[in-house]
């Protein structure tokens, strides 16, 4: 295909001003130097002018309004109307969908979890105790801090109370003694030590105070 053949294809759009700017330049530059293409372009222009003179352009003042009125009076199928309604909601519809799904999930969760929540609140179901945790029948451990300054006095007092005729069971006596010790929590300048007492086995643990 020669260059003139290619340019001849572009002469009609060139005359109508429909080419790209660089294409317009190319065609114009070629037409200036090519007699055959220039005559063809003149024929296109003559034909265009003649056609425009023949055709009568209708009045377009109320064109858009007339079209809209015709559309309004046109019967629209139900499916199309529903589609329009859904499209009208657009994003709002998706939000309603999300809220609806969340609400349904919450309702189902509440229905499933309500019995367990009731048990938990009422405390009816026992919680299994691990084997390592202190046994339920283990004797109580009494923790006391003893002031070194007055420990001997408290000890004597507790011993005197235990020697009474109505001395209670060993664990109660030990607890009583420990309570005495607790009541004598260190004051003043005397250092204190931590004491644990396990009355059933008679084991007493004393933490030696820290040395500077």
């Amino acid at each position: 295909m020669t260059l003139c053949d290619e340019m001849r294809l572009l002469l009609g759009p060139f005359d109508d001003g429909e080419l790209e700017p660089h294409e317009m330049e190319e065609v114009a530059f070629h037409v200036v130097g090519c007699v055959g293409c220039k005559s063809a372009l003149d024929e296109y222009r003559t034909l265009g002018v003649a056609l425009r003179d023949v055709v009568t352009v209708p009045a377009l003042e109320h064109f858009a309004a007339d079209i809209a009125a015709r559309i309004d009076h046109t019967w629209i199928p139900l499916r199309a109307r529903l589609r329009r309604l859904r499209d009208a909601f657009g994003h709002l519809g998706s939000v309603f969908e999300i809220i609806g799904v969340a609400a349904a999930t919450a309702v189902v969760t509440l229905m499933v979890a309500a019995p367990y929540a009731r048990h938990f609140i009422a405390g009816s179901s026992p919680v299994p105790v691990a084997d390592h945790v202190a046994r339920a029948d283990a004797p109580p451990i009494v923790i006391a801090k003893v002031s070194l300054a007055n420990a001997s006095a408290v000890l004597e007092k507790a011993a005197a109370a235990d020697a009474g005729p109505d001395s209670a069971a060993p664990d109660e006596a030990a607890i009583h003694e420990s309570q005495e010790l607790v009541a004598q929590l260190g004051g003043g300048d005397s250092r204190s030590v931590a004491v644990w007492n396990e009355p059933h086995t008679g084991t007493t643990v004393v933490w030696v105070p820290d040395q500077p």
Partner: protein
Amino acid sequence: MLLAVCLASAGTRGLAQAGTSSVKIRVNSILATYADSSANSRRAPAIKMDARLNSYGVAERLRMMFNYTNYRLMRHQEDKAALGDAVAFNLPGGHILHVSPLEVRGNLLMLDLVMFEGARLIMRMPMRIMGDGMLMLVDEHNPNQYYITTISATCPQLQHEPPSINVEAEPDVPIQAFPALLPAQ
């Protein structure tokens, strides 16, 4: 004649001591440490208990009262003291423990404990223990190194009541002690 007097006085003293209550005091020095439980290990560390502690009746009490994972017997000492007298025990770490049995009341033995570090007084505390009871002194020497000194006493006048220790010995499974007794880590 002088020899006779000396022999007589010695015999008298022996008779006097035989008549006076003599308290046998046992002291065990135990080194307890806590194994570092890394975050990757799912199982709790097993307890390593010195076998000699089982024979001294200390192992069960240690498992019950503490949550350490390693217990090693450093020293076992025994001595006798009359009521009102004191006996001294050398403890690991340079401590000296004076134990003075004071009085026996039923199944309770009154003791006076004094602990020294060299010539410096660390602690003085009168305590009492039951016939088959035990006193444990816990002292932290270094981070994650605790010296546990167990003190037990026997005396003919003490009314012994067997302790009810229902701890099942599970050396491979640590028994969790009371939260207050967990060592600081």
